[in-house]
């Protein structure tokens, strides 16, 4: 099956793209190239760059954003939103069950116990750490793709420290400056309330008697590739951005060092991975964490968001069981289906995988960022036989999926609009309620034919517009 094109269907340009495509036509390629250059200098002056390891300070790359926005019609978005809320509700329930709820889903045989216990993201030390409101995935990034028939499918869940939301917000600001004419002709749901929504969610999970909690963002520091985002979010929320060395734990309470002395901290939106959080319990060589932080979380005097141990639910080996978990907890069908996945640790499925290895995608369960993925129909013989051996040696280390041809979207490349593959990462907030930011981050593989959209591997992004078609409830874009 070929790729689904977001803009052009069998009957020409799809209705929700007609106005935009006309506008782009009027502007013309030359003018678009000028605006594309403007965009680059816009991001550079603002310092919206990501560091490329090994390059000098002045050599950071700007964030590659494409001029052509992606548009999602209102009704389509409502379906996606419902599917995301359903999925994240279940993932929160599952994690809470796993760490403080007696592991009912495991006891009832929904997910095999050995699979959980062999997951690299499963953290024994997280047992007994309370999560107010059961909101363990306060910020979730759920990666969606569209198959050849245009069906949205979940490709993977990111429940630990998903990044990318700052680009969603900055892309929107950049687009209003570079392509105002596009905005004038659409009613687009805004995204700039994200900071307020995130802060509300974080405040809602403060430890019990705290009325007016102190919330901070914990970053690994300036050297981290997502530092821009950490700082951006702290600014959007109007709260402190701290590093491990700014915090200390005394008698199981967390404090930050301020010019006025020590100040209690109640909620930590941490962008530091589990294993670096606390050198007393996790990696002893970590300088990014805070000694005693785990003990404080366990004592319930501070809430960490996201919770420790969420990797057990976004393990690619657990992913195939999410539809069953949706049925188990909610008695519902998944609104957003998974990509068809085969499990190498099931002997009959291993046989199937090995027989069709040149048509499937093989993914290591523990990797992120597009690393280690082998796409069967693009790999040479040597790679395929190597991966087949790896599968047989370590079946738990991989999953196999049907190759999804990812939908394509016109993208401004070398002065022309060319179809490039895209995915979509919407962001879901769990606090008192579950809230989805309209749209999300559309990532685009800038290399022709490539299916890998990660920015570390030649990916860019697009502003993503969710059209507001609710009558009488129109929101004017800014």
């Amino acid at each position, binding site marked *: 099956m070929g790729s689904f094109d977001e803009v052009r269907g069998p009957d020409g340009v799809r209705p929700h793209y007609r106005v935009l495509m006309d506008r782009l036509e009027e502007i013309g390629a030359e003018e678009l190239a000028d605006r594309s250059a403007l965009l680059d200098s816009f991001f550079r002056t603002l310092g919206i760059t990501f560091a490329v390891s090994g390059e000098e300070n*002045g050599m950071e790359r700007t964030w590659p954003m494409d001029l052509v926005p992606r548009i999602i019609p209102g009704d389509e978005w409502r379906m996606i939103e419902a599917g995301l809320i359903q999925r994240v509700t279940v993932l929160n329930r599952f994690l809470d069950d796993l760490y403080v709820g007696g592991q009912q889903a495991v006891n009832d045989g929904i997910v095999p116990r050995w699979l959980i216990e062999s997951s690299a993201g499963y953290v024994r030390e997280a047992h007994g750490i309370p999560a107010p409101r059961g909101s363990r995935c306060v910020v979730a990034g759920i990666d969606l793709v569209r198959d050849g028939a245009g069906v949205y499918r979940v490709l993977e869940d990111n429940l630990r420290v998903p990044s990318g939301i700052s680009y969603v917000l900055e892309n929107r600001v950049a687009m209003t400056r570079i392509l105002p004419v596009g905005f004038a002709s659409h009613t687009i749901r805004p995204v700039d309330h994200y900071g307020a929504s995130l802060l509300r969610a974080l405040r809602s999970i403060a430890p019990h008697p705290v009325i007016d909690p102190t919330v901070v963002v914990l970053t690994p520091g300036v050297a981290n590739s997502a530092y821009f985002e950490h700082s*951006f979010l702290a600014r959007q929320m109007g709260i*402190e951005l701290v590093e491990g060395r700014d915090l200390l734990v*005394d008698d199981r309470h967390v404090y930050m060092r*301020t010019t006025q002395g020590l100040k209690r901290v109640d909620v930590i939106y941490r962008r530091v991975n589990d294993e670096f959080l606390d050198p007393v319990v996790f990696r002893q060589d970590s300088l990014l964490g805070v*000694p005693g932080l785990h*003990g404080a979380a*366990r004592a319930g005097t501070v809430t960490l968001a996201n919770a420790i141990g969420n990797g057990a639910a976004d393990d690619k080996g657990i992913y195939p069981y999410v539809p069953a978990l949706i049925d188990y907890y909610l008695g519902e069908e998944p609104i957003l289906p998974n990509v068809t996945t085969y499990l190498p640790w099931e002997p009959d499925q291993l046989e199937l995988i090995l027989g069709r290895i040149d048509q499937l995608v093989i993914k290591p369960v523990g990797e992120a960022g597009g690393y280690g993925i082998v796409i069967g129909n693009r790999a040479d013989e040597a790679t395929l036989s190597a991966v087949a051996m790896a599968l047989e040696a370590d079946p738990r280390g991989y999953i196999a999926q049907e190759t999804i041809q990812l939908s394509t979207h016109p993208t401004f490349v070398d002065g022309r609009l060319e179809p490039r593959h895209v995915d979509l990462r919407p962001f879901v907030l769990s606090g008192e309620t579950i809230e989805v930011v309209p749209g999300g981050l559309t990532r685009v593989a800038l290399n022709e034919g490539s299916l890998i959209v990660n920015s570390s591997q030649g990916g860019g992004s697009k502003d993503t517009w969710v059209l507001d078609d609710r009558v009488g409830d129109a929101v004017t874009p800014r």
Partner: protein
Amino acid sequence: MLSRHAEDMFWLGRYIERAEDTARMLDVTYHNLLESPGENSSRTWQELLEVLFVDAAYPGPLQGRPVSGYLVTDRSNPGSIIASVGRARDNARGLRDRISTELWEAVNVFHLELARADFALDIDRRAYEVFRNIRSRCQLVSGVAAQTMPRDEGYRFMMLGWLLERAEMTCRLLTVRYVRLAGSEGQLGFHAWVSVLKSVSAYEAYLKAHDASLDPSSVLEFLLLDQEFPRSVLYCLQQVERLIDRLAGSGGPTAMERAIGRVRARAEYCDIASIVHSGLGQFLEDMQKEIYQVSEEMENQFFRAGTDLQLHSYRWA
């Protein structure tokens, strides 16, 4: 605010002031030597390195091109302009959520300009323009800070860095130049004093307040004790004291407050004639020590919370 942020704000101010002072002094030295070819240029470059406190580390010959290169574009010199601005930019980056976007952009663009590969070439071709550009970039940063930053705690720490660096720099300039200038008479002395004044942007202001006769003790008085000139040592110390008052809050005077009060009073009530008589060198050295102590006490009070605590981090539930 976070102690670390306060400290980074403080150093952001210091680094930018240092870059500006360095550029200005380089500019003055460079063009002075062009005007007076008879002067001993290696001696002049040596003095400049001393004022900037890098004479011991400087590895090259005492000539204009290598010294300027060392002071402007040499990353191995932690006090070079490129290094100062680079660190100011690192700090500003870490402070993105505390400083205005305009201030961040001003520092970032400054850094990008210096990091341009062909920047070093420019010094040879048009030294005047390069130094002037650096100065106006620094002034842009301080102007943008003044125009866009709320007068909050962070702003006060940044101003403290600016002012303490400036006060120290003026003291050092006088220390190094005084030794040589104290005894000099006639034309040479006149030009040298002009260059001292120009090194701190004080020449025009001095002429307005006094006249062109350039009596050495009135120059000294102007740079040390003028109540209105923003680079005089006393003016800086008075501003520092005011900022510290605002930051310290109520309660009895702390070690920091006593330190600034002492050094400000010492400057304010001193008598130039008797200082010159009893030894200006010693006076300036004492001033520098006391200014340094103000920084030290300020760091203890604001940047070191919790360091003396006996932690009970490892107690389990």
